[in-house]
Each structure stands twice: as structure tokens, then as C-alpha cells.
């Protein structure tokens, strides 16, 4: 097996699929000559040329709309938003057009478009730090994957490109493991574990709606996504020292959601901690919490705990950002809380 970083895994998925399918194109800001703000598209302009890799103007709504038009007429565009925050510039095209065209057309329209968006807090303040999944989870017609490991990233991305619906693939900046070609430090996080860094060279798909148990345990179920999978795994290691056995489940896609795997774990441990980097109010944890209450209430031995970002724009100062974003200690506190009784 080969070890890849998450950004290398995503690139490999795109490159292999572009070699296989001439209808796949890339569009986005600084993805060609500059190789992508986070180096994900490194070398792709050289290999595929300017008719497959389009360096766009800073016009998110415009190139998102063009991607939709291209998807409607036989191409399979992959649109890179430089930061997930910039997707809001293209909200009408994503929410009112891409998500609704299949239904509005009575099933005539296929919209095979992939939106890639790096997200998460990395010291870049309020407009380059958001976790956006809840906005799009609230939009029927979109599907959302959010890989936590290179292995998952390659399989989910390969799958996403082959789907005929609009798909949002969120990528956590701290999981990339690569530096910007513009210089600077490689983005990383001390808690990132080695899980899923062995990535097969051949193409493979991970179907959406297929959660993965990243660690088995008996006392409490932690459901987490992206970077929070790694922080939850780190918390689980710490809790083991206290004799507490944690199961960590990664949904890998929010839409569709693998309810069965999540609920099976909940019914086994009877205690739940939900961990997500998006803000608490109306967020991923709120939705998962409601689902578990509706479908596994009788199995719960304690109220569900939510660990997510505070309800605030992400502040710049490192101490403040750290306070707002879920840390290992916050997850541990919540684990202790659900086990109290």
C-alpha cells in the first residue's frame, strides 16, 4: 500500500477519472497556473490542458452557473471553490438551480457536478474559516460528502464524479497535509491520526450513505466528521486511560445519511456524543440529535451531548479561535457527562 495525504488522494481521484472520462473538466480560481490555493490540482493543467482545466475569473456565481450549464449538456464539471466561505457568492446557482433542476424538469435534467470546498478554522478569521455543511444539508437535491481520511477522500471523490446529481465534497484544510504553492507551512493538526493513509493506486468508489466505524467501543458512541473524527479518536485514547471504551463513527456523507450504522452503534452503547466543527445552532449535531431522539429514544441512558462550534463568527485571535472550535478536552468533558449516571 502507498501512503497519501488527503490532498494527494483527492487529486489522484480526479486525475484518474479525467483520464478515464473526457467529459470531466475542472473550473475554479487559481487551479491551473498556480496549481490550486491548497495545491490540490497540482500538475493538472499541464496534463489536461486549458480545455479541461479552466482558470476562472473571481466570479463564483458565474462559474458555478456555467458548471451547471455544462453539466446539463453532457460534461461532468468539478468546481473548486477556493474557500467554502466563497460558496455563498454562488448561493442562487447552487440552491435555486443545481439542487432543483432535476425535480423542476420532471427528471429530464441530470446535473452531474461536483463542488469541492475547503473549510474549517485555520487562523484565517471569520470569512475563511466557516464549516458550511448545515447550509447545504438544508437543501434537498444536493448530496454532501465530508471525508476524514485520504482513503475515504479518494473513494468518495471518485464516486462523486460519477454521480448524476450535484454533490458537495467538503475538504478540511487541516487534513490536507500539503502546503500552498504560494509558500507557507503545511497545514496540519497535532491530532491527525494515521488512519486511512494507505490508499490503493487503482480506482475505487465509496458509496454515499455508508458510514464507517473508525474505532470500536462499548460505553459511548461518538459521531464525528472530518477533523473532528481525529479529535474524537484522540479523546477516545485519553478516555481509555480512565477505563472508558469509546466507539467513533464517521458518517462520511451527511446526505444521504447512513442512519442504520449510526443507530446500531447508539443502540449498542446507549450513550451519544456528537462532534462537528460547524456552529451549534441549527447545525449537524442538532440534526443528528433529532434523528436519534426519533429513532432510538428508548435506547438512550443519558441526554445526547453536542460538541460543536460556538454560535459566533470565527474570531481571529488564536486563543479565541481555539475556544470557539471543539477541542479534545471538550469532547472528553462531554463523554464524562453522558457517562455520569
Amino acid at each position: 500500500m502507498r501512503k497519501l495525504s488527503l490532498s494527494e488522494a483527492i487529486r489522484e481521484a480526479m486525475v484518474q477519472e479525467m483520464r478515464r472520462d473526457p467529459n470531466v473538466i475542472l473550473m475554479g480560481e487559481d487551479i491551473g497556473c498556480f496549481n490550486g490555493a491548497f495545491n490540490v490540482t497540482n500538475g493538472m493543467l499541464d496534463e489536461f490542458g486549458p480545455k479541461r482545466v479552466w482558470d476562472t475569473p473571481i466570479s463564483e456565481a458565474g462559474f458555478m452557473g456555467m458548471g451547471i450549464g455544462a453539466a446539463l449538456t453532457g460534461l461532468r464539471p468539478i468546481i473548486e471553490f477556493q474557500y467554502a466561505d466563497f460558496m455563498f457568492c454562488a448561493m442562487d446557482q447552487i440552491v435555486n438551480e443545481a439542487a432543483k433542476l432535476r425535480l423542476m424538469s420532471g427528471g429530464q435534467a441530470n446535473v452531474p457536478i461536483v463542488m469541492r470546498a475547503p473549510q474549517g478554522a485555520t487562523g484565517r478569521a471569520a470569512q475563511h474559516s466557516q464549516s458550511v455543511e448545515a447550509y447545504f444539508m438544508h437543501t434537498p437535491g444536493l448530496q454532501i460528502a465530508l471525508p476524514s481520511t485520504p482513503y475515504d477522500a479518494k473513494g468518495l471523490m471518485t464516486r462523486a464524479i460519477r454521480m448524476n446529481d450535484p454533490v458537495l465534497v467538503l475538504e478540511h484544510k487541516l487534513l490536507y497535509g500539503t502546503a500552498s504553492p504560494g509558500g507557507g507551512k503545511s497545514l496540519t493538526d497535532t491530532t491527525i491520526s494515521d488512519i486511512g493513509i494507505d490508499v490503493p493506486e487503482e480506482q475505487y468508489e465509496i458509496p454515499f450513505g455508508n458510514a464507517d466505524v473508525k474505532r470500536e467501543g462499548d460505553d459511548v458512541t461518538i459521531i464525528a466528521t472530518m477533523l473532528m473524527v481525529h479529535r474524537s479518536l484522540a479523546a477516545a485514547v485519553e478516555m481509555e486511560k480512565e477505563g472508558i471504551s469509546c466507539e467513533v463513527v464517521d458518517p462520511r456523507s451527511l446526505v444521504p445519511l447512513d442512519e442504520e450504522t449510526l443507530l446500531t452503534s447508539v443502540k449498542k452503547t446507549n450513550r451519544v456524543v456528537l462532534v462537528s466543527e460547524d456552529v451549534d445552532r441549527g447545525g449537524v449535531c442538532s440534526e443528528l440529535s433529532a434523528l436519534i431522539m426519533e429513532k432510538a429514544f428508548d435506547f438512550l441512558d443519558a441526554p445526547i451531548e453536542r460538541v460543536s462550534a460556538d454560535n459566533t463568527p470565527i474570531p481571529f485571535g488564536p486563543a479565541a479561535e481555539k475556544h470557539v472550535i471543539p477541542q479534545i478536552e471538550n469532547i472528553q468533558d462531554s463523554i464524562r457527562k453522558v457517562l455520569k449516571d
Partner: protein
Amino acid sequence: MSFKRPEDVATPIQFSGYEKPFLKLLCLRMVRAREFEEQLYYLFLTTKMPGTMHQATGQEAVAVGVVSALNADDYVTSTHRGHAHCIAKDVPLDVMMAEMFAKRNGVCKGMGGSMHLCDFSRGMLGAFGIVGAGIPIATGAALTSVVKGTSQVAVSFFGDGAINEGVFHESLNMAALWKLPIVYVIENNQYAFSMPNDLVSAVSDLSLRGCGYGIPGEKVDGNNVIAVYEAAKNAVDNARKGDGPTLLECITYRIRGHARFEPAKYRNKDEVALWEKYDPIKRFKEAAVADGVLTAEELEALDVQVEQEINAAIAYAKTGEEVGAEDYLQFIYESQKESGGNE
């Protein structure tokens, strides 16, 4: 507040060089669009037709003139006021009518209605209910033509209101930059809902907006179907041979209110009466008879044909099943098919 006066816009309708069948087709398409919407108006009053609609009465020459310059496999995006574009693109009246009645045999299976009519088999990529939304989507269809190396051209229709949306500017810039095969058509019907041009656009000559992107901007008498056709043909030919986009401003007038029963009290009756005299269908017919290129009998025969087509469309719509309460479930996602797209 001022409006553009028809006598300042109107140009003579020149028939020379055109064959009878083509002229008949232009007239047929315009009459179809007019009578389809007149019938809708009546059906809204007398039946349980759901929803709303936006009539393009008086603007038919723009849709018909432009689309008649296209090939069958060229792409079109349309607006909330989109019946005429669909009809010009030969979307059958029966499935359109059934869609208006929210029937399963409608062109969008009763899921879209008036503001989302589309027919992918005819390159009709959709009416869009969000003002300006179709502009980048048509531009993307033009991108496909370049990537795949086909010679297809895209046309985006939108109103004078849409040019103040950001995607108008973003799209024109990219299309100009990459010389995409697209024609942008402003249907300047002089009102964005209640707002006249000069209260919402700082520069009243809308065709000038092409300058900022280095593309031709041209003004056309939008109630002269031949003039529209000729301007569009020129722009489409240029797009097809790789010379990039054109912005066409077709000046016309929205005879009706913004939507179904909206009375348009923000404008005076004299203004409407003046533009009614320059009705594009009336002008075409009178000029054709005066020129001798078509006879009154031939034109009447077209009217009769359209009346029959519309009656048949209503009958077809009435035979359709009502949309079921859970029909929508099959249209939210597909995602199981391994490959494809819309080819």
C-alpha cells in the same frame, strides 16, 4: 419617467430574399405563442389551472426571430416569461398545456409549471424563475460546445431587469474572455415588474453594456420579426465560427401586466395603446399582405391551424392524470446511474 416610443424604434419589415415557407413559419410561431397565452389567460379564469403565469404578449417577435436563427440542436435558456421561447423552439403545445394543468403528461411531469418549462430533447434548457439565473447556465452550455468541439450555439434570453444582476456581468466577461459561442438577448420590454428602465439602469441604452466586455452590442426593433431574425442570424453565425458572443438588445413592450392579473397601474393607458398599434403580429401580417408575399387567406389558414393545435393541446391536457401526492419522490435524486449526463 419616460418610455421608449415605438415610432422611434420601429424599422420597416423587409421581406425580400425570404421564401414563403420560412415567412409562414415565423408567423405561425408568433401566432402560436400569442394564442397559447391568450388561452391560458382564459383558462385561468374559467378552470382550476393552478399557479400563475407571465405573459409575453407583444414580445413574440423577439423569441421567434432569435430562435428561428438557430439549429434544432442549439441551446436556449429562458425566463419566468418563457412560453414564447419554448414555442419558438418547437416544444409541443400539448405537453406544455398539460404542464400548465399540473398533469403527469406535462413536459415536466407536473413538477415545474409555467416558470420552469424545459425540453432537453429540443435544447430548451429551461425557463428559470430566478431573474438572470439562466445567463451563466447558457454560458456553460456554450462552454460544452467548445470543450466537445461541437458547433452548437447557445442563446440566453432575459429581460431588462436581469442585466442588473451580478451573473449577467460575470457571464459576459467569461464568454468574451473565452470567445464562447453564445448570444445574449435582452428582451427590453421596458419594465422590470413595476420599474421602468430609466429608474433602475443608470445608462438607458442597454446595448452599451457590451462595450465593457469588448463584445458587440446591438439595438434591434424587437417588434419586427425579420429585423430580429437578421440581427440574431448575424450574431449566431459569428458565434458559430468562433468569433465569440454578442449582446442583442431587442426593444419591445410588455402589453400585459407583470403577472397573471397584475393591472400595471404604474403606467398610463396612452402608452400601452400606442405600443398596441405596433403589435408585432399585426405589423407582420399587414406588411406581408401589403408586400404581396403572403395573402390574407394564407394568414387566416395559419390562425385556423393554431386554433386547432391549441384545442388539441387542451384536450390532451384534460386526458392527463393529476400529479400524485408522492410523484415528487422520484425526482429529488438519481445518483444510482453509473455514467451518462444528458447526451
